[in-house]
């Protein structure tokens, strides 16, 4: 391979003392530290980097930076890497994307044979009929042609992505001369600054400038890096600006993650991205060897790469003129310089794998392998659009400019106007000062309003007017398209001819045309294409550019990987104080909401039977627990529960159910009165947070005069249910100061005492299993001691732990319903069988009007106990109950299990009221389609409906 590396350039970024080995399509290459993938390959003589999306024409370097549409490559298992900006790393395996079988011999070129059928709107027009082929054929084939690389999600080696938050006073998007100057002056004014630059080094266009530019750049860099108040993020990009100056920054190549998303809350945002050089539209403008002036300047000056041998330059501005000088200094023969300002033009580039000749506007054919165009600039106003601005077109300067910005967003640098380096940095400094002043006023206000911050020592900074002298707008010819047609969108293979056709078909608004043709919708998101597309549409419609308008640029400014958006995945998990013990003793876990819980310890049926015959222990810590204190607790309970609470005595417990304001059952639990003004409320495990919020909401907004304090104590009290006929016997061995006899401690009572030497335990005589049982709430730091004491002291009583599955069996045998499982988002109190509990004559209860209305209805579903006639069949939960002989749905099974006590299947079900009478036979449709019969039971409880086992 021939070397295109030039002798040492004063501004080059490469370290020639290093050699980095890498492969390109399987072939070995060597580059230097500081090379991009593209520069290293170009230095080695590689000219073709990709193929066009639709016609698979060869593509070479166009812009030689991050926005180059022709330089998307696969690196290892990472797709869509921007080879124009990604720095070379030793050992990289780089390959071309979207080609088969190879970049050189790509069968996709066959598309050119049918090119005339692949016109604009091809997809919409071609794959309409027959409709059934869309899924079976069309979609599969089209996917084969989808651009982009491949993600191998099974063998991905990216590691973890990351996120972090930041709160700079000023964030500067763009590290060119104006951006750097703005950052410095903002920091000097006392602001904290985040300076974000998408290239790996600061400087913008100064980097490839002359000695004077390099001297200025060196000073700016030295100043920035010696200013502690400025955090510099290179190889990073601001991807979006959202409400209240919430700014997203994508930090690449961080040492702990391939990409990190920074969520910055910013006082002032300074938008200083510079300008993006736009291509020129003419026949053959995508042939390798056609480059923008900025590309050749970067290749020559930053990476010492000779971009060609014989060049034709079309120049409409100083960048083109400077490119001529750079080419000559690099030993490139400049065959012709065509001055677009004087009306000179290029109409066609010719060549197969590389430009071989150029036809000029006056008919000359020039032999050349490089055609350089410098025809104007696009202002990347995306961040300004996101702040609400609609930039306006200036015909004289031939580009768009900001129009109206909110106070907390400012623009500087090329996006705001033209100027020398001195003028740009001066404007940047003024902008930085203004931004800092506004941000510091905001910070002053925040400090004054934030309780944790001390009051500001100084007065609020005075507002200063925006007295910046605007940058000038230099005249520039409107150079968009030659007399021939060429590509407008390189990523999407959309030509000027396509756009004119779309306009002819009626898609004559820029927004409609964009969506119909997909112009500007590729990875570049319009950076190179938007203005040319608008110009072609203006031409087609015979109107001025200013009348065309622009498309709306939305986040992200640059594509963001899904990994960066996901960042570190935080999924909080709650563990009881006994969870380590469960896991060490063979528990199989279950994730119930955020709680990890023991589902069983090997044999849930045996665990359930042991509770019926001996005594079992279950960890029910997730049960919601709220400590209620104050003289108005009973009023609060009266308000939130459907039953009465004024007469609950100290030491007694009452069951309560809550409904929401629409009358739907929302939660339930028991509440015990521990002292005169002290209660402990329990809620469902999943409802604890919502109930707490609801109580606080009522107390803080609707009943602020009530004296009630609510404190959540769920995790602080480890809850152990001791259940089974021998539970009293077991507890008597460990409880010191509480009489556990049936008379002294009856069902639905609560006591405070010492258990296994642990004080301040709360002992409830309640249960969910239908057996004699006690629920012991233990201060969690001592819970393991109590749990192990219960086990060691009850070995002769047959004590054993049981898990959630055994508890579900036992509670279903007993017929206890679970809110959210046996009820749903429509279940009102009558459905849940709360007739005996609800007091409709109370003065107030949440949902009372709806409760009253519900009890007047006769059409609400009814929760019933149900037993399949075939006792061996356990219908899956949610199986439908249907009318025999039809598919009319009359209910559903809400809970089902095999009962070890009855040795048969048992269920709870919601049924139509016509089926609710005991003895009614219903039809249940199983998951496999079979239908079985089942009989409605007299009670919800299948075992001990009278409650004799638990009231001993």
């Amino acid at each position, binding site marked *: 391979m021939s070397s295109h590396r030039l002798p040492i350039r004063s501004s080059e970024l490469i370290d020639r003392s290093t050699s980095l080995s890498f492969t390109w399509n399987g072939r070995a290459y060597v580059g230097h530290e500081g090379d991009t993938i593209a520069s290293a390959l170009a230095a080695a003589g590689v000219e073709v980097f990709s193929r066009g999306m639709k016609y698979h024409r060869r593509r070479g370097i166009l812009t030689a930076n991050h926005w180059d549409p022709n330089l998307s490559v696969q690196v290892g298992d990472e797709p869509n890497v921007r080879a124009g900006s990604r720095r070379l790393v030793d050992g990289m395996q780089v390959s071309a994307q979207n080609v088969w079988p190879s970049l050189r011999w790509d069968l996709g070129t066959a598309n050119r044979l049918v090119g005339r059928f692949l016109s604009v709107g091809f997809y919409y027009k071609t794959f309409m009929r027959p409709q059934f082929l869309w899924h079976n054929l069309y979609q599969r084939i089209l996917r084969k042609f989808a651009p982009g690389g491949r993600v191998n999600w099974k063998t991905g080696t990216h590691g973890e992505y990351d996120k972090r*938050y930041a*709160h700079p006073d000023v964030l500067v998007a763009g590290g060119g001369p104006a951006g750097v100057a703005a950052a410095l002056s903002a920091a000097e004014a006392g602001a904290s600054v985040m300076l974000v630059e998408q290239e790996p080094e600061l400087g913008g266009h100064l980097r490839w400038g002359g000695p004077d530019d390099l001297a200025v750049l060196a000073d700016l860099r030295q100043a920035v890096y010696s200013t502690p108040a400025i955090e510099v993020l290179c190889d990073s990009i601001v991807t979006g600006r959202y409400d209240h100056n919430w700014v997203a920054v994508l930090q690449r190549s961080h040492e702990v993650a391939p990409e990190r998303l920074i969520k910055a809350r910013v006082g002032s945002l300074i938008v200083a991205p510079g300008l993006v050089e736009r291509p020129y539209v003419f026949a053959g403008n995508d042939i390798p060897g056609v480059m923008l002036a900025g590309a050749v300047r970067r290749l020559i000056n930053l990476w010492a790469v000779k971009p060609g041998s014989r060049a034709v330059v079309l120049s409409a501005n100083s960048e083109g003129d400077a490119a001529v000088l750079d080419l000559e200094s690099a030993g490139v023969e400049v065959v012709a310089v065509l001055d677009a300002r004087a009306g000179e033009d290029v109409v066609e580039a010719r060549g197969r794998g590389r430009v071989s000749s150029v036809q000029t506007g006056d008919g000359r054919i020039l032999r050349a392998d490089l055609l350089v165009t410098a025809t104007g600039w696009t202002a990347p106003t995306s961040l300004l659009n996101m702040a609400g601005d609609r930039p306006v077109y200036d015909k004289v300067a031939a580009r768009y400019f900001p129009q109206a910005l909110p106070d907390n967003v400012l623009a500087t640098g090329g996006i705001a106007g033209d100027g020398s380096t001195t003028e740009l940095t001066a404007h940047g400094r003024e902008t930085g000062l203004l931004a800092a002043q506004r941000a510091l006023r905001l910070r002053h206000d925040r400090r004054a309003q934030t*309780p944790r*911050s001390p009051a500001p020592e100084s007065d609020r900074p005075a507002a200063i007017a925006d007295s910046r002298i605007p940058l000038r707008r230099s005249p520039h010819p409107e150079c968009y398209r030659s007399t021939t047609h060429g590509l407008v969108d390189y990523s999407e293979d959309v030509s000027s001819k396509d756009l004119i056709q779309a306009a002819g078909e009626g898609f004559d608004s820029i927004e409609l045309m964009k969506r119909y043709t997909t112009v500007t919708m590729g990875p570049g998101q319009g950076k190179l294409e938007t203005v040319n597309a608008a110009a072609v549409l203006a031409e087609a419609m015979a109107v001025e550019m200013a009348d065309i308008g622009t498309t709306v640029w939305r986040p992200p400014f640059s594509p963001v990987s899904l990994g960066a958006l996901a960042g*570190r*995945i935080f999924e909080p998990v*709650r*563990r009881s104080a006994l969870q380590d013990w469960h896991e060490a003793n063979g528990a199989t876990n279950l994730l119930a909401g955020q709680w990890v819980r023991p589902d069983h310890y090997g044999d849930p049926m045996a665990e359930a039977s042991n509770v019926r015959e001996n005594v079992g222990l279950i960890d029910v810590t997730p049960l919601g627990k709220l400590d209620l204190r104050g*003289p108005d607790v009973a009023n609060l309970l009266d308000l939130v529960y459907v039953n009465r609470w004024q007469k609950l005595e100290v030491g007694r417990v009452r069951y309560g159910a809550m409904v929401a304001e629409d009358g739907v059952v929302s939660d339930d639990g028991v509440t015990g009165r521990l002292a005169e003004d002290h209660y402990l409320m329990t809620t469902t495990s999943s409802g604890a947070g919502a109930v707490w919020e609801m109580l606080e909401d009522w107390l803080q907004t609707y009943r602020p005069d009530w004296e009630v304090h609510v404190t*959540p104590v769920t995790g602080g009290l480890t809850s152990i249910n001791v259940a089974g006929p021998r539970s009293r016997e077991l507890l008597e061995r460990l409880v010191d100061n509480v009489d556990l006899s049936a008379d002294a401690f009856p069902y639905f009572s609560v006591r405070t005492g010492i258990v296994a030497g642990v004080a301040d335990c709360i002992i409830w005589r309640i249960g969910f299993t239908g057996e004699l049982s006690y629920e012991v709430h233990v201060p969690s730091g001592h819970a393991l001691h109590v749990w192990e004491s219960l086990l060691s002291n009850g070995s002769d009583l047959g004590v054993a732990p049981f898990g959630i599955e055994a508890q579900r069996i036992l509670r279903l045998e007993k017929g206890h319903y679970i809110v959210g499982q046996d009820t749903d988002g429509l279940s009102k109190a009558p459905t849940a069988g709360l007739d005996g509990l609800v007091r409709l004559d109370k003065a107030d209860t949440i949902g009372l009007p709806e409760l009253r209305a519900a009890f007047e209805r006769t059409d609400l579903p009814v929760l019933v106990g149900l037993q399949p006639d075939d006792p061996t069949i356990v219908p899956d939960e949610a199986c439908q109950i249907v009318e025999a002989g039809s598919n009319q749905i009359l209910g559903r099974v809400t809970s089902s299990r095999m009962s070890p006590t009855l040795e048969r299947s048992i269920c709870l079900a919601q049924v139509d009221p016509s089926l609710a009478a005991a003895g009614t036979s219903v039809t249940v449709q199983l998951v496999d389609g079979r239908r079985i019969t089942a009989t409605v039971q007299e009670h919800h409880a299948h075992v001990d409906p009278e409650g004799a086992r638990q009231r001993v």
Partner: protein
Amino acid sequence: MSELEFVSPVASGPLSAAGGGISLEDVSDRTKVLVRAGRDTAAGTHLKVTYGRSRRRRDGALICGSRPDEWTLLADPGQGTELLASLPDEGFVSVVDITHGRAMFRLSGLDTVGVLAKVCNIDLTDDMTPDGAVFSGSVAKVTCDLVRNDLADRRSYLVSCERSFGAYLFAAIADACSEFGIDVPADLTIH
């Protein structure tokens, strides 16, 4: 039950970076008492700390203004009885010992702001969150109370959460510390 060992929700011992830039320690065994009272009550007057700020009492207890009309008192292990007894109880006052209900960690060192910035969206600059500041926020998606409580000019934060989240949160903060030099044990994983 002073003879009984307090079992923390966190099994790990203290973690620290070799360079001393960051350290993370479980201090869940510290006494924590929640006081809710109106500012016009004797308890409110006695505590003398406004919402968002904290102060060290003569007996060593740290009084934190956690929320309007709510304080959290932090003290050495086993001080619950003394703390409860130290508070006037006239008027409508609730005092709840939440020692067992809250996990608490101390994060110290120069890199604490960097660590917390990975898991918490609060502005921790000195002027917004000076030493003594008390605030609440989401830390690795867990609702937490935080106190900036510097130790001899070493920046330090107390982070507390509902006890059951303790093991997860300690692992999540340790994970954030790994960027700053803490070698996180393999069993401390957030996934």
